[in-house]
């Protein structure tokens, strides 16, 4: 039998030491470098980080509780004591915004995470198996798409009562549909690539091909879409709160705060202004960050 003479390798060949090797720059590293050149995305990232830190750590530093009422104090504009004023019940607006931010942000991220997990698994499975399974799975997605979202949520609240987790699940259950479609499309194109064929012809297992060869190559678009999903989810939560289906008082999300502020807009404008400011800054920064990530992760799509 003819054996290829590749092994054992000739000993006279010097084995390069790890530290002598030229380090390559991975696509991730390149993407980060490109992102750093995108000033707008960087500002967005910094802004978002600041808002997130304020919301997470802020409540520990303020002397007020979010439910702490000072009825005698009443609604006041911004003062040194209350930087963003107080509402009609004398509650500190900044504290309430920070607490509301915690809720809004966690709804945003949790629901996105839910949609990510369901969407990626569902979409990747559908595309990888293909054929009739794929057709059936995607028709199911189409049917869910056709369901009116608000009625779906009202139904859920009627059955399970109002709770924060319900909001996560409700929103996640809607958002995963788009994610599944995106991931399916990506995997379908990827499946045709020769490096996947190469992996198959090397006899790698299906699990290995999905984990090592498919998923790392769809992570880019997934991250981008996730970044853009977070603000969309926060908006949805605000809509739910608007309809009175969101979090329950005295807890408040940004959506609830804006809703309350809207009612008192003519009398106490700061009650609308400050939560709306936080909310829009967050939406803006996430959207710009998402755009920046898209350009950075897929240099071909961007126009110089």
């Amino acid at each position, binding site marked *: 039998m003819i054996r290829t003479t590749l092994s054992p390798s000739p000993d006279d060949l010097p084995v390069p030491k790890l530290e002598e090797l030229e380090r390559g720059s991975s696509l991730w590293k390149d993407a980060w470098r*490109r992102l750093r*050149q995108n000033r707008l995305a960087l500002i967005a990232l910094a802004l978002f980080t600041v808002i997130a830190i304020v919301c997470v750590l802020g409540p520990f530093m303020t002397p007020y509780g979010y439910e702490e009422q000072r009825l005698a104090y009443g609604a006041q504009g911004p003062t040194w004591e209350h930087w963003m004023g107080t509402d009609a019940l004398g509650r500190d607006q900044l504290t309430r915004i920070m607490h509301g931010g915690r809720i809004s942000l966690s709804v945003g991220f949790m629901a996105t995470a839910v949609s990510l997990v369901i969407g990626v698994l569902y979409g990747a499975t559908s595309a990888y198996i293909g054929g009739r399974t794929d057709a059936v799975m995607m028709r199911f997605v189409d049917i869910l798409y056709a369901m009116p979202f608000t009625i779906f949520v009202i139904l859920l609240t009627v059955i399970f009562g109002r709770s924060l987790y319900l909001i996560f699940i409700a929103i996640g259950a809607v958002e995963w549909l788009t994610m599944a479609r995106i991931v399916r499309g990506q995997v379908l194109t990827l499946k045709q690539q020769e490096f996947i064929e190469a992996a198959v012809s090397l006899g790698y297992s299906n699990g290995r091909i999905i984990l090592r060869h498919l998923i790392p190559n769809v992570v880019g678009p997934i991250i981008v879409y996730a970044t853009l999903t977070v603000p969309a989810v926060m908006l949805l939560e605000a809509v739910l709160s608007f309809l009175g289906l969101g979090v329950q008082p005295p807890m408040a999300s940004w959506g609830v705060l804006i809703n309350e502020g809207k009612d008192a807009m003519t009398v106490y404008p700061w009650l609308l202004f400050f939560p709306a400011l936080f909310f829009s800054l967050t939406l803006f920064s996430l959207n710009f960050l998402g755009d920046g990530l898209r350009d950075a992760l897929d*240099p071909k799509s961007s126009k*110089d």
Partner: protein
Amino acid sequence: MPLLEVNDLTTWFHMRDGIVRAVDGVSFTLDRGETLGIVGESGSGKSVSCYSLLDLIPKPPGRIERGTAVLGGEVDLLRAPREVLRRIRGKRIAMVFQDPMTSLNPYLRISTQMIEPLLIHEGLGNREALRRAIESLEEVGIHDAVRQIDLYPHQFSGGMRQRVMIAMALITHPEILIADEPTTALDVTVQAQILELIKARQRELGTAVIYVTHDLGVIAGVCDRVNVMYAGTIMESGTVDEIFYNSAHPYTQALQQSIPSLHDKGKSLYTIPGAPPDLTEERSGCPFAPRCAYEEAHCTGPNYRGLDAFRGRHKTACLRVLEGELNLKEENR
């Protein structure tokens, strides 16, 4: 007076990672009715230089930095106002692209697409234009043109579409036809048909043709004169016989020797070491020097003068050949 005189054409692309010097000081002339081949590897600037002539490069990032391209001694294509250029494109200069699958609009009937240049450039009526279109389809060997002309592009095979493209390009009887890799996407047997067709139509109409290709075989078969391009510049320019039998540039020679030609028998192929240069780096001296077997210190020095007359109209950019230090014919013995 040449039909087209290109001088110092320079097209750069301003990318995020730097300036890509795609075409860097290209000069050549084209006479009436002749066939000029522009040959080079990918990234040599052969296509970009032709696209620049018709203002077809994407701007930004592309920019024509300097140079002139005078058509018929009257219009500078690079500076002509849009209006003027529009009247030249498709009328006096026509183009055939590489991929016949994507260069026809899939939503329009062949007839609609074919009569368009006639309506625009010659002000013909629909009826007359249609008659001319059918005629020109017949001239490119499409049988039953009266019926075929009402079909959609996807109903044609690749070779047939390229025939349609040629018929369309030649329908206004242009003075210049630029064919950008017209047969690269086609099979060899179909390529032979298309090359014969272009040759025949050119003879009948007296059109000058610029062939852009990477295939020296195609060049040998159809061209009168050849420009060999490398890294955005012309390395050598001469008649086909000069280029193939009396090459005055090491790159041209290396290119010919590295073809698995149909004559050599099983011996190792000649290879050019290394890879083409990074076009974002500023060039000093000969761009081929790092890969050249005859490279010497002064090739990259200040004396390097680019393309210059070697013998009559035969030009080379090789400094050592120009200085008489290197005789490639001797070297090859």
